């Protein structure tokens, strides 16, 4: 089966944000051309796996640091591989975009811009080491909308150190006023390797943390967004099709340093390390990788893990049975799931407790 979903990792950043544990390359802007060469070389190596691409996602890092010229060149090379109506997303840090760059991306066929806002509160932005000012964020979103991108999305964060009830209310208000087509609102995770995790001062008031996400959901739903995935909201028709591919356990190819692919039951991860990536592809070889074969049990459990993130009922014929089907009744009694004919759906309360529900249903991961 051919792969229809492509992720391209563009790792360059000016600095590393305190909450970030991604594979990023700081202070290596002089390697951008070499990196683009390497990416295109990896694309050639993988080309035979690809069918008409339904979605392409350029993530980072800070993809816009590649500047319009390189992104356009990359998209030119992808163009013959695209299916009709393909969704092409570019992630952007608001402070790195200007009207010329956005215009160039729009002309090159980008359909969707995703801006990493995280917050509109200057204090919280600086706690996260984010460089953009609230004004830069607003301008970037408004300009992208004005240019006519099919969808504009903003990323927001919850549980930022120091975040109060008032901060959250203000951020909600800002987002609703900006009217993006799509909102991702994640709870900040302390990933090992991030500076914030090392600082360990993330003590958020427990009761606030519990309440807060419910407020996010209420606020966005009141403004007409659909809570279509655990941490994502969209106006009808503006769901992210690339992300939906992940959540419906489709195969995807990841190109670039640190990128992950899942193809035919094998998950593979390109190693971190910009130099090694560029060198290997310079020799025409695949970059260093690790491979994780996924057995049928793992794939079945992943279908549950991913599928129950969505607001539509999980089709058991597709997902397979849980390890403990008997737990479904008990979870239903607790008001966490509802069982239909051949389907299981998480209730609204169940969605807040997805991890716990999954661990009631599964023996292992």
């Amino acid at each position: 089966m051919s792969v229809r979903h492509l992720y391209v990792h563009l790792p360059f950043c000016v600095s590393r944000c305190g909450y970030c544990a991604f594979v990023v390359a700081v202070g290596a802007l002089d390697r951008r051309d070499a990196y683009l060469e390497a990416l295109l070389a990896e694309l050639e190596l993988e080309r035979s796996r690809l069918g008409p691409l339904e979605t392409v996602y350029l993530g980072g890092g800070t993809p816009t640091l590649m500047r319009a010229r390189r992104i356009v060149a990359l998209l030119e090379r992808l163009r013959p591989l695209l299916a009709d109506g393909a969704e092409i997303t570019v992630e952007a840090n608001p402070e790195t975009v200007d009207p010329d760059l956005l215009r160039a991306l729009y002309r090159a066929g980008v359909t969707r811009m995703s801006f990493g806002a995280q917050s509109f509160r200057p204090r919280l932005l600086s706690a996260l080491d984010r460089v953009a000012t609230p004004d830069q964020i607003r301008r970037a979103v408004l300009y992208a909308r004005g240019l006519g991108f099919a969808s504009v999305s903003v990323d927001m964060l919850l549980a930022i150190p120091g975040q109060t009830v008032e901060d959250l209310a203000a951020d909600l208000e800002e987002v609703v006023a900006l009217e993006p087509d799509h909102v991702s609102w994640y709870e900040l995770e302390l990933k090992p390797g991030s500076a914030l995790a090392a600082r360990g001062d993330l003590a958020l008031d427990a009761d606030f943390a519990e309440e807060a996400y419910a407020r996010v959901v209420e606020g966005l739903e009141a403004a007409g967004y659909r809570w279509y995935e655990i941490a994502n909201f969209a106006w009808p028709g503006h769901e992210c099709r690339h992300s939906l591919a992940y959540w419906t356990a489709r195969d995807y190819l990841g190109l670039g340093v640190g990128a992950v692919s899942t193809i035919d039951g094998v998950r593979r991860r390109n190693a971190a390390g910009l130099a090694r990536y560029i060198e290997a592809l310079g020799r025409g070889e695949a970059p260093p990788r690790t491979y994780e074969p996924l057995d049928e049990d793992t794939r079945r459990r992943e279908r549950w893990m991913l599928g129950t993130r969505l607001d539509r009922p999980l089709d058991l014929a597709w997902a397979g049975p849980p390890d403990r089907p008997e737990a479904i009744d008990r979870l239903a009694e607790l008001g966490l799931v509802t069982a239909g004919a051949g389907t299981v759906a998480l209730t609204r309360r169940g969605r807040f407790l997805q991890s716990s529900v999954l661990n009631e249903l599964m023996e292992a991961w």
Partner: protein
Amino acid sequence: MEQSRIRNFSIIAHIDHGKSTLADRILEATEAIDEREMRSQVLDSMDLERERGITIKAQAVRVLYTARDGQTYQLNLIDTPGHVDFSYEVSRSLAACEGALLVVDASQGIQAQTLANTYLAVESDLEIVPVLNKIDLPAADPDLHARAVAELIGDDPERVLRISAKTGLGIEEVLEAIVERVPPPAGDPAAPPRALIFDSVYDQYRGVVAFVRVVDGAFRRGDRMVAMQTGRSVTAEEIGVMTPAMTPTGSLAAGESGYIITGLKDIGDLRVGDTLTLAASPAPEPLPGYREVKPMVFCGLFPVDSDDYPELRDALEKLSLNDASLQWEPETSQALGFGFRCGFLGLLHMDIVRERLEREYGLELLATTPNVEYRVTTKTGQVVTVRSPVELPNPSAIERVEEPYVRCTVLVPQDGVGAVMGLCQERRGTFVTMEPIEQRQQIVYDLPLAEIVLDFYDQLKSRTSGYASLDYELVGYRESPLVKLDILLAGDPVDALSLIVHRDHAYQRGKVLVERLRETIPRQLFEVPIQAAIGGKVIARETVKARRKDVLAKCYGGDITRKRKLLERQKEGKKRMKQVGRVEVPQEAFLAVLEIGDAAGVRR
């Protein structure tokens, strides 16, 4: 070796006063062991003992020492444990000796347990050689403590030796004093042989190994022997001494200490305290034995994974081979399933056994709250022994309940007297006496043992800034108004959390316990009420609120494996918990009423 050149001695010391270090120095000075091969503190053979700096099993080591008089002497060092839980072990070691080194830290002075063991030694007519250790420390006050130690044992302060086991200073004087002051053994080499078993261990290759002190006559390899109490006859497969490695000698003569390998399978056949004699020429009378060892503290041990029950049984069987004081019998709990009710000498003993089961046998265990053994007289006049709260009869059927009392001796500086007496009063103590010893007060209280097995030692230490020391011995049973305190989780009583408490303390204990449980039990998918009740009447209540949210993080292509691992980690957290009815209870909850380590007084 002729009896006149044999010296059997032990070392009495408080924990950390330097007993093991001194033993090491003695072994070094007599070249018993190669220095290069020497691990520090060789006598403490079990890893656990090494880690905790305490000695559990008595052992005997033979060294040869050429004294200043030019003669070579055989010195047998019989090791003693330093913790109050093991005072019976001390009495058995002392019975095999003619003398004892009394080692006291030159900055801290005598501690309560040292005092108790010194009295034991004096009662056994042992020659006491007083030694002040750590005189090199800046805080040392040797003159003060020398006077005090001399006064305690009725000796001349000039005869108190001043050493530093750490630097080796004064070790030779210690060895000379052993030779000069400790009398040689007085047994009759020509009489029918008698040997006191002061310890025994089970070795999986050699069977039961008895550590003995020969009093009269001699034993040789191949001798047919009889254990006089059990009547069990057995052949001496090998005889030897510890140097400290096991070294076969073929025989042991009157006055000597060593080991006898028997090949027996059951350690109960050669009981500690029994007398060995020869089948061919039996002695008419056994040697005076020991007081019987009785467990004082009981708790339930349950495998976290109920499939491990057979493994737990096997492990307890194996541990009992070397620990006659450990008792156990099957117990069934509604909450925890199949397990064992175990009896221990004290909290430290309990803690060590539990840790060995987990470490050496790879078991994950739940321990229920420790309790003592109660004696219940029913309305029909029956006397029932109760070792677990669930065994307590219905209140309406009880005529009276009696609980064990201990006589507690606390040594504390003058300014700590108020704190100690306050604590003893709180814990239902009855004042007995108070008298000055050295610069301190010796306070004696009678207390219910149940009050000691909770956090008494911990409290004693913290309220006296660590200056108080404690010793206790059982003095008998006394009637008390005791009730059963039940704990209910989500409406269901949890038998494994029940307690027997004094009626006047029930409300406070129940309140504290449900508070601790609320802190310990994590939020579940539903609300969990925690109640404390006496005879169906709820006296305290707390609620663990329902969990409302997991971390709502993103999950894209690069996150899937990591997310799965997070779920696996969450799952492992669940597995470490015990499913009690519908509620997942962490292991710590079953110990919510006390901090075992602190109560045992050895950790930290």
